[in-house]
């Protein structure tokens, strides 16, 4: 795979803007000039501990980016900062060109434009599946109930959970709950989807159905930034893999390049452990 698509941590920031689109973007769709999401020099510390050190990362339209790395490498924190669930200590987070790390940002407005799915699903247990899915549309985006419910039922139908629309989340298996959580996140048509280890809490038998749904979303053109431990999935579905090590992007590029020809010793060690 082409070497220039990968960058070491040292030369990160500057070269990013001019870096050509990688891999699957060349499928015919014209490359979008402005990335959906761009992180520039993002830093985050918890007390003495530097969780994110100078993260530079761009996510373009229709791109699926898998962030990999050992636990504690800052993957989850990275996603949380993008959704403003965690403040940053320096740098810029640009959503469609606007810096959302700015304190004057309309936080709820930004979150309404980004869909998030957590490891633990976090469905609302006191609401029916349908109400879970339509909550944001109705309460944040002002969509009339009937319309929101029609959309939600269609989405649930498509993932084979139409029969569960009126059930409460506890009736569902983990995989079904996580698929509902994903549908909840995409129901209001977000510009960006953040998936934080969405299969880590699942039975191995149920991982597949969730990953299939993510693959389906990619086919439909969603822009996804996700953390995962599923290397096989990352290899097949990701447009780009980003390896995070001690709060730094030490290597990134197309799956084949990152997974088959790792250069950074930390990545080599990491891949040896997960035997990708």
């Amino acid at each position: 795979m082409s070497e220039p698509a990968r960058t070491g941590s040292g030369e990160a920031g500057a070269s990013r803007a001019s870096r050509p689109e990688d891999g699957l973007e060349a499928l015919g769709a014209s490359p979008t000039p402005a990335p959906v999401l761009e992180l520039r020099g993002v830093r985050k510390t918890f007390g003495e501990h530097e969780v994110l050190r100078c993260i530079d990362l761009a996510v373009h339209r229709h791109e699926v980016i898998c962030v990999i790395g050992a636990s504690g490498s800052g993957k989850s924190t990275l996603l949380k900062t993008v959704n403003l669930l965690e403040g940053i200590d320096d740098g810029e987070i640009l959503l469609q060109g606007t810096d959302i790390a700015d304190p004057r940002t309309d936080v709820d407005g930004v979150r309404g434009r980004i869909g998030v799915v957590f490891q633990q699903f976090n469905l609302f247990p006191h609401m029916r599946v349908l109400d879970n899915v339509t909550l944001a549309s109705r309460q944040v985006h002002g969509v009339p109930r009937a319309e929101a419910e029609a959309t939600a039922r269609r989405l649930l139908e498509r993932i084979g959970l139409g029969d569960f629309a009126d059930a409460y989340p506890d009736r569902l298996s983990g995989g079904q709950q996580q698929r509902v959580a994903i549908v909840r996140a995409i129901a209001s048509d977000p510009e960006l989807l953040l998936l934080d280890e969405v299969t880590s809490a699942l039975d191995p038998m149920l991982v597949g159905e969730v990953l299939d749904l993510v693959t389906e979303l990619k086919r439909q053109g969603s822009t996804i930034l996700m953390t995962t431990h599923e290397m096989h999935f990352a290899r097949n579905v990701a447009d780009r893999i980003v390896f995070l090590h001690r709060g730094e992007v030490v290597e990134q590029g197309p799956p084949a390049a990152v997974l088959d020809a790792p250069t950074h010793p930390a990545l080599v060690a990491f891949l040896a452990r997960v035997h990708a």
Partner: protein
Amino acid sequence: MTVPAPSQVELERRLYRRQRGRRSIAVSVVSTLVVVAVVWIGVVNTPGWAAVQQSFFDPRTAVESFPDILLGLWLNIRILFFASIGVAVLGTLLAVVRGLRSPVFFPLRMLATGYTDLFRGLPLIIVLYLVGFGLPGLGVFPRQPPEVWGTIAIVLTYSSYIAEVLRAGMEAVHPSQRLAARSLGLSHAKTLRLVVLPQAIRKVTPALMNDFVSMQKDVGLVSILGAVDAVRSAQIAQAETYNFTPYLVAGLLFVVISLPLIRITDAIARRQQQREQIGGTV
């Protein structure tokens, strides 16, 4: 979709369970009857029983005082109705304010904390005196009947209890629920109203109902302000007949009105639990 006939082993187990069940019922019935009989015989054979029976269990006085006491009870029920609304609103407000984390709200939070500390510690009867006789004495409020002051006193006291119960419930809702709600773009207020509070209330329903039943009987204390409620009516009847039976009648009526609520709450709590956690309850 026919269920296969139970095996011999299962049939034998069922038979054993049924036998055990019948035995348990028989034991509890007999022991209950024995206890009741012992207590009854013990009480009836006390030296003063004849006099007590005369002044507390006189059927004629009971029947005669009943209509007035029932009329008085209607006032209790109305007070209870308005007090419940007041307590729900003020209690929720206090709970929410105490749950605010931003330093900006420090004074408000302190005020709410001080309020709950004060009114949880203050005996209701003293609050009733202060509000019922003190506030009208200021001469700035328009004249109100005593039951209005009584209602205000009850709201002040009980909202502090309810606020604490609700706050505990809100803290028991897992933080990831707030996280999920906020990440959908819901504002702080909507997160509270649509996600946190409904779950909090479900968690503390038994405690809330306990306080409600407690309030239901404390409503009888408004009689000390002169409101003619069930207790006051009983007192009037007692003064006329020199017989304490009317108090017993009023007491029983309070118990009777609280019973359906207790049962309904139990049923609601059970249904919610079943609906939200099918299976896996030990």
